[in-house]
Each structure stands twice: as C-alpha cells, then as structure tokens.
C-alpha cells in the first residue's frame, strides 16, 4: 500500500474519535495505524486529549471573552460616566451649600453686629423686663437671655441661661421659642416658667395656657415634644433626653413677682426654694423640723421677714450669720 494514499489527517481521526466515521473509513484507519508506530502514537495522543477533555469539570462553554468584554466595557464606561456627573453634581451641591453657609455666616455677623442682645441679671434678686415683642420676662438671679435684633419682627427665639418666668404676648404668627440647651419650650401666648438646673435638666412649669415642650434626642436624632397645660409641669432630663412629668411646686413659679406660695410643702423644700431665690443658706439638721409642712403665701422680698414667719409658726429659733441661717428647736 502506498503511504501517501493512506494518509489520514487530524480531521478524519477526530471524526473517528467523535464517532462520525463509517465502517469503511474505520477499516482504512486500522490499516493506517498498522503502517507505523508514529501513526499509532498520533491517534493515541489525540484520543487521550479527546477523553481527558471530556472529563473537564466544569465543562467548558462556548463563550466569547472578546464579545463579552465589549459588553462589559460599555457597562463600565457608562458607570464611570455616571460617577463623573455625580461628582460634578456633588461639587455643585457643595458649592451651593458653601454659599448658603457664607450667607448664613454673613447674616449672622450682620445681625450680631447690629443686635447682639443679651439680657443678663447678675444681681442676686429677680428682675422683670419687657421684651421687644411685648412679652414680660422675669429673670431670676444669675440668669440671662439672648436674642437677636429681629426678635419680635421675624422671630421670637430666645436662648435662656438660668431661670426665667415668661408672660408671653399672644402672637399666632410668631411662636415664642425658649431654647434651654437640651430642649426648650414653644408657645404662642401664655405664662410659664423655665428653669435650667445645674445638671442641665430643664424644669418647665405652666401657669396659664398651653405650651409645647421639646427635647432633641441625640440618639434617635429627632425631637420629642409634649404639650403642657395650666398647672402642669415637666422636666427635660439631661441624662435620658426624655421629657418626664413633674409635680408642680407652687413655689417654683411665683418667685418672679415676689409671691411665694407654699402648699403643704415640707420645710426642707421650703428652705431649698428660699436658698435659691434669696441666694442664702438655711441649715437645719433636725429631720423632724425638715418634715413639717408649710401652708402660706409670702409676698415680700425680705428674707428675714420670711424666716421670722416660718420660725414663729413652728415655734423654732434661728441664728443668722451673714447670709447663713441656722434653724433649731428652742
């Protein structure tokens, strides 16, 4: 047999391995295999590749990485483009925000240069004043109010330090807002007392009308509000940032007009109130005395007079040393 006649190419051998050859062709291949070791080796190797390829797990799939990349590139480019416009938008927004800040800052300077108004009471006794909107405020000792020139025109916002009693002139268009640090009070027109305690708690006592007490809750990042009406009180607690209901002490709300009402108030609390309002120090180590309830109305700014009344009411004695009073049983 002629070697050339019997030349079998890879295409035929592959067809053979793929099972696409006829019986006649197969006989031809057998003859070809017998011709040389080389031929045998060739088919042998093709077969190993064919069989091994069939074992691939996972099996290959007929995908086109090139076409797939074209698709991916489009997607990536579109994404990058959108990121760029987004960045532009952010820059634009940032500049808008910056200009707003500048405007705010300038207006702040402007208002502050034109009207940095502080109403401070550095005296040991309460003072009463009228605010630009016609509301009356009684500022307790060592307390102050801050407000801007526009107060009463386009706002009625106040910042309070210490304690103040407000008689707010009704204005439904401009709410009267007292900022007391961790929260505050918003009203349209009413009478109420706001006192910032040393621990930053804020005590609110309403005498007349309706107020809204608010508190910024830093945890939930929102504002809690509560409505208080006549003779109701609340405490904005600094530690919990909650608005807690509170029993109204009659004494607390009348300091501003030198009227102090004690209504079954234990002397211990009476002393505390007097200490605060007159900037004095009443000492009493007798718990029996401290528990005695007091029912009376004082309308005086003379502390000695008040101490006299109390001691004589309960048959007590007191000694005075400067602004220190010591109460004892006779």
């Amino acid at each position, binding site marked *: 047999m002629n070697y050339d006649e019997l030349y079998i190419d890879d295409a035929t051998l592959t067809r053979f391995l793929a099972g696409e050859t006829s019986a006649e062709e197969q006989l031809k291949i057998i003859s070809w295999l017998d011709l040389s070791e080389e031929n045998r080796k060739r088919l042998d190797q093709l077969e190993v590749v064919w069989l091994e390829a069939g074992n691939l797990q996972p*099996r290959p799939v007929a995908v086109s990485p*090139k076409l797939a990349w074209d698709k991916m590139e489009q997607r990536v480019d579109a994404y990058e483009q959108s990121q760029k416009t987004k960045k532009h938008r952010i820059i634009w927004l940032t500049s808008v925000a910056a200009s707003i800040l500048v405007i705010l800052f300038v207006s702040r300077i402007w208002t502050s240069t034109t009207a940095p108004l502080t109403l401070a009471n550095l005296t040991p006794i309460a003072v009463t004043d009228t605010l630009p909107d016609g509301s009356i405020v009684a500022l307790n000792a060592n307390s102050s109010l801050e407000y801007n020139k526009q107060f009463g025109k386009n706002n009625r916002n106040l910042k309070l330090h210490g304690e103040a009693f407000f008689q707010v002139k009704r204005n439904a268009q401009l709410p009267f807002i007292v900022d007391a640090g961790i929260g505050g009070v918003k009203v349209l027109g009413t009478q109420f007392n706001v006192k910032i305690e040393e621990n930053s708690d804020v005590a609110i006592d309403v005498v007349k009308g309706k107020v809204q007490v608010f508190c910024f809750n830093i945890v939930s990042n929102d504002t809690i509000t509560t409505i208080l009406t006549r003779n109701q009180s609340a405490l904005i607690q600094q530690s919990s940032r909650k608005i807690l209901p509170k029993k109204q002490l009659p004494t607390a709300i009348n300091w501003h007009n030198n009227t102090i009402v004690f209504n079954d108030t234990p002397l211990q609390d009476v002393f505390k109130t007097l200490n605060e309002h007159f900037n004095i120090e009443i000492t009493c180590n007798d718990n029996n005395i401290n528990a005695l309830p007091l029912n009376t109305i004082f309308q005086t700014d003379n502390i000695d007079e008040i101490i006299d009344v109390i001691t004589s009411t309960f048959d007590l004695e007191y000694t005075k040393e400067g602004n220190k009073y010591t109460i004892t049983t006779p």
Partner: protein
Amino acid sequence: MEAKTNINTIDKPAFELLFKQHYSNMCAYAFNFVKDQEVAEELVQNIFFKLWVNRKSIEIESSVESYLFRSIRNAALNLIKHINIREEYKKHKQSEDQWQEQNDADFSTETELQKLIRQAINKLPEQRRKIFIQSRYDGLKYREIADKMGISIKTVENQMGKALGFLRTELKDYLPVILLFFSHLFLDE
C-alpha cells in the same frame, strides 16, 4: 500564572486582562449550576461589574480568582433559589454537592493535564472553540453543528481536526507515551 492582581488599585486595562483571562472558566463554572449559557454569562458579567464598581473598597483575603469563583457560586445558588422550582433546585443542589466534592471553587483540584487542556481550549479561535465544545460537550453531531452555525459539514470537520490537533501539539510533552491498544474503539461499530 501572572503576579497577584491588586484589585483595589486595578485600572481598566488590567481589569480587561483579568476579565478575558477568567471569563471562559467562570462561565463554565456558572454553567455548571445554572445549565444555561446565557444565564451563566449574565451572572459572570454581573460579578465582574460589581467587582469594578466596588474595586476600591473590596477586601479580598484570598486571590481574586477564588473570590470571583466564590461570587459566581453564591450568585448562581441565589438565582437557583430564586427560580425556586423544587425539582430543578434539587438537580442543581445535587450538581452543587457533586461539584463541591471535586472542586473547591477555583479549579484547584484539576490535574495538570486537565488544566492545560482547559487553557488550550480557551486559546482556540472563537469559531473553532465553539464547534469543538458543541461536539465534545453538547454531544452534537457534525451535521447538527453545521446547521446550527450555518456552515458546511466540511468546515465543521476541518475545524474539529484543527482543534484537536492543536490540543495535541499544545499538550505533547504531557501526554503519556504508553501506547494504548486501539481495538476497543472499533469493536462497538
């Protein structure tokens, strides 16, 4: 194997390289689960796109390769769950378990020879590779492939011969030299 790709600082040309290098195998891997080439490709595209979008922030402890294959598997399994056809799911679940046993997502348990064959297949020109895969893996007859691709049966035959011939020459050094006894190949006919 090239140097380890740092995905956090990858640029587009390097990303293209990574994509083209792994696309075929990832599709094969995805196909293993979803049994549909189009779906498999879509999955792989999405994985790569996500990789690009998150490239700066992504933290890859292992290699990018195993990250990609893991992502594929998770995406494929999610998809299968989403399809939620119980019977289908069972089948896929089986294939997953089966697959889990033999391969840890990154083809690492493949024999050297299998790895080389896979690489060689991926090196084939596109049309040739497509014909070869349809014949070898989809079990199509030459006639069927020819009809499907709108080419002559002679072209299929030629391309098949060139494909297998190429694989043989690529792997020559790795093929066993022991001669097999071939008679069994004819006995079936």
